[in-house]
């Protein structure tokens, strides 16, 4: 693989020094595979690992051979990796789980609600019941919550998080702050939520907006504002609990033993997206620990071996065509890798994961990808 054109060939990430790896990236680049590979590799090296996926399509569990609807952590057998002495230690384990945002949300409400009545008010709210799953950002917020829970378990060494395919990098990492913003915004006063820390003076434009929103509600037949208001208002007594968790999540993302990694493939459109991710993370003062280019093709040989082979001429011709065909794809890949240019952040590791030549569908395949993440 010729990476002379790209900056800073670096070593691998030191997984033993990490307690959290967050994999971000555009859709279809193999984030789930990379997350699972990190987890399998760390477990094979004697660590106690939890890997969590937020993807609505539960490919991680597929790859780890687990049932798709398990919301409880499922222990993954490491028998296949038992050749290493360290993985035989009692300590080593690998658990996988898929996030169920609705369930997590219910649990959080129950945890922070000041009273049973407040809890029930939320759980029975029409908005909450119908749309807490669809509410943009809620699943992301819940993932951060679940993550903090997993990460604070003293029996766990490493948590690997596979995030949902995102259009923008911060969609996910920023979720706790956005939810807080909503709860703490003038929107709440605008909706006329009762007192507490939300009480603010309304500006003229807000009063106008409130009137218009009320009209909007009437015209549309939603009668939604009252419920939104009740919903947001019912968070009143819980704001501090949420704020503390959101702060904890932001701190965890910036901790020394957290690595945010961006996964991409060498396709031009994905590389462009990866660059946007890097820039967005830098703007948000989040450090990118590694950029992983997944499924990179092997370097193409020249045709000398074909010419000298003792095979029929017609077959030689076909082989040369095949070589030229895949060579063209390799050229395409190198062109996009060049486009990475100087966009790799300072101190970030660039990792190139060679194409396996097959889909990684088994634990052994994941272990192989994991090894290529470790060794260079």
């Amino acid at each position, binding site marked *: 693989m010729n990476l002379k054109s790209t900056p800073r060939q670096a070593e691998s990430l030191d997984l033993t020094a990490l307690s959290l790896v967050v994999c971000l990236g555009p859709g279809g680049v193999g984030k789930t595979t990379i997350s699972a590979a990190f987890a399998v590799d760390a477990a094979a090296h004697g660590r106690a690992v939890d890997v969590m996926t937020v993807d609505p399509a539960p490919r991680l569990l597929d790859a780890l051979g687990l049932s798709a609807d398990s919301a409880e952590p499922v222990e993954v057998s490491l028998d296949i990796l038992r050749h290493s002495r360290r993985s035989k230690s009692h300590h080593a384990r690998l658990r996988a789980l898929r996030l169920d945002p609705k369930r997590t949300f219910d649990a959080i409400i129950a945890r922070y609600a000041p009273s049973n009545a407040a809890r029930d008010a939320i759980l029975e709210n029409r908005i909450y019941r119908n749309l807490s799953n669809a509410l943009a950002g809620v699943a992301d917020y819940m993932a951060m919550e679940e993550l903090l829970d997993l990460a604070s378990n003293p029996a766990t060494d490493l948590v690997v998080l596979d995030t949902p*395919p995102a259009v923008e990098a911060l969609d996910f990492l920023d979720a706790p702050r956005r939810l807080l913003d909503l709860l703490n915004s003038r929107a709440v006063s605008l909706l006329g939520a009762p007192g507490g820390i939300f009480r603010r003076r309304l500006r003229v434009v807000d009063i106008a907006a409130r009137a218009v929103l009320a009209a909007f509600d009437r015209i549309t*037949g939603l009668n939604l504002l009252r419920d939104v208001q009740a919903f947001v208002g019912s968070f009143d007594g819980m704001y501090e609990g949420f704020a503390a968790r959101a702060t904890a999540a932001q701190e965890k993302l910036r901790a020394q033993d957290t690595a945010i990694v961006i996964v991409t493939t060498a396709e031009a459109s994905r590389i462009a997206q990866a660059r946007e991710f890097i820039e967005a993370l830098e703007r948000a003062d989040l450090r990118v620990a590694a950029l992983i280019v997944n499924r990179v093709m092997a370097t193409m040989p020249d045709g000398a071996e074909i010419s000298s082979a003792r095979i029929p001429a017609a077959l030689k011709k076909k082989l040369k065509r095949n070589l030229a065909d895949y060579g063209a794809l390799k050229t395409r890949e190198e062109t996009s890798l060049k486009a990475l240019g100087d966009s790799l952040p300072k101190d970030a590791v660039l990792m190139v994961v060679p194409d396996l030549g097959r889909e990684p569908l088994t634990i052994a395949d994941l272990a192989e990808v994991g090894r290529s993440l470790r060794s260079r």
Partner: protein
Amino acid sequence: MTLPRVSFATLPRVLFVTGKGGTGKSTVATALALARSRRRPTTLADLDRRMSAAAMLGVTTVDGTAATVTKSLEVIALGARAELDAFIARIVPIRAISRRMLRSRTFGYVTAALPGLEAFLLLERLRIMAGDAALEDRYLVIDAPASGSALELLSVAAGVKNISPTGTLNRLADSVAAFLADPTRFGMIITLTPEELALREALETEANMREQLSITTVAAIMNRVPDSLFDTAELAALSPLGIHARLAVRRSASQEVASAMARRLANAGIATINLPMMFTPAMGIDELEQLGQVLAAELQDRLSKTR
């Protein structure tokens, strides 16, 4: 097992192109729009915030305005936010107030608290566009989000019905649901590549869309299928040749996987159209044109067979 016939004659007014991430949704949607536009005026609607389809055709668009590509093909970028803005502008008669509201951060938070509304209005826009297109005998191809998000997007009408048992939105939700379930107006194209996980996602998507929303899948389009070059005897003779043998095997294996998958799709009642792997150093407009030609020939061919 007879598969539903796919041809220009039977294509619905709107083709909604979705699939697993990385299977080439934008490429397929663009090629499909190019193919369709050879016979009828076509609009390619880009729901992707990054506007990859527009970029592939070398045009830039802003939310809600169409850019002309050829005499019979235009590209339009649709964003949920822009639809909400348009909706507010429609129902708030005083422009100064509506503009001010739309600019205010507060309003942004409020609409964020009315979940699903933006997405719903986007669907409503598609329904209206389909109606207009029918009057002009124009076709729509939609470059949609990946399957998981696409299902969420299309399910939003049902959610709106649940929270709004009466009134304008409730009636709109009914029309949107009817639009999605009408095979002459709306059909889904599922993209995949010859890979197991892409196939599983395609099968799940077809089933979920059909069972939950009565959406018809027009066809699966299998992207990046290499043409076959080697037969079994040749592959056997190549085995001492190291990487050259591996490359040859890779090509044949990909081909075989594609055929096996087309059979599994057929068992699920889904017709498959193959698109060739473009072995070129770049994917540009020429490559898209070629893929468009393949699709046009395929759809044309089936048309003549059905007669």
